[in-house]
């Protein structure tokens, strides 16, 4: 399968978009276990669900604003160069 570096970059941008799109109030709050902001003590095992939720929350916090110009750039690039 012929993948190039551009395909990888596009895939990364698309996946980050997919994570950032998840709406906080309509969807994520309804998930059981979402509000676990405090890790219970210094437990050795945070548990898989809390890890995933931490990951989603941190990706949204970090990438929400930088992704806007990146998406604009990719759209313009694809409009011009196809």
């Amino acid at each position, binding site marked *: 399968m*012929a993948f*190039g*570096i551009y395909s*990888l970059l596009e895939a990364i941008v698309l996946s980050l978009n997919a994570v950032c799109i998840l709406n906080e109030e309509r969807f994520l709050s309804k998930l059981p276990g979402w509000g676990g902001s405090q890790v219970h003590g210094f437990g050795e*095992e*945070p548990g*898989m669900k809390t*890890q995933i939720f931490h990951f989603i929350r941190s990706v949204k916090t970090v990438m929400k604003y930088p992704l806007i110009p990146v998406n604009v750039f990719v759209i313009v690039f694809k409009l011009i160069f196809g």
Partner: protein
Amino acid sequence: MYDNHYDPYGQPQGQQPPPQLFEDTSGQNYGYGNQAGYRGNNYGYPQGGGPPPSGGQGGNAQGGAGYPQYPGMPGPQIFQDPMVANMAMQYGQSLVGQGREYVDKKLEKYVSMTQLKYYFAVDTRYVMKKLQLLFFPFTHSDWSVRYNQEEPVQPRYEINAPDLYIPLMAVVTYILVAGLCLGLQERFSPDVLGMQASSAMVWLVLEIFLILATLYVTAISTNIKTFDLLAFSSYKYVGMNIALLAGIIDDLGYYLVLAYSSFSLVIFMFRTLRWQVQGGDGAMEAYSAGNKRRLYLLLFMSGLQPLMMWWLTRHLVVD
């Protein structure tokens, strides 16, 4: 206008010589008359290439030196003076050293160069034994890595340590063998090589992302560094090369070699990683849920290898 009585270009007199594109620091203008001012001023001497030379300025009507001589300033021909040349060379060398240190320091934050050097410290005996282990891991009994916990061990001294030399050579060989296979099937063109190279890179990166993500989500604490993962993920390229070379001869040969090398690679990965994933000191951890997760992770990583081996060579061996 240049003076006509001395023409270094050998052109007939009266014809204008071609414009000076560079300063002429050849030995024609060498003279000891400029010793007075070279101590402090020579690093800022004026570049005289721009304005057209007027022949009689400052009394230095010398043919070939087409730049203005400012009165009192030494001019560039002082660099023929050996003392000045030595000083300039030493200064230049110290600048290069400082520049290199600066670049190294900046690069260290992203790709740790000092760590990287350990992975390439191999010798012939290690490479032979490692290749032997990759294809016949059944008789090796001690898979532990004895090393000081802080600094990584050189593979020269420890047979079980991962290295990056074999993977690098294997990846380059894979690209060449892929080109060979494609050429034998009349499907070759030079950009195909580049595409094979970049797709191999991309699959490697994806695999390492996947394993890192799995490590993060399952919250397993291991001693595995990213470069170790890179090394372990690339050991399969050795098996792939042999399988591809066998595939040139016969399709059945390809499947047989692929099956055997993936089997031995799975055993190799499982045994190597079992030692590394479980805390790294060989002692079993106390809590049991972590052990089950580690086992699953091990099986996942080892099982991923034959799949990738098959996937990456499939399109090169067509019936």
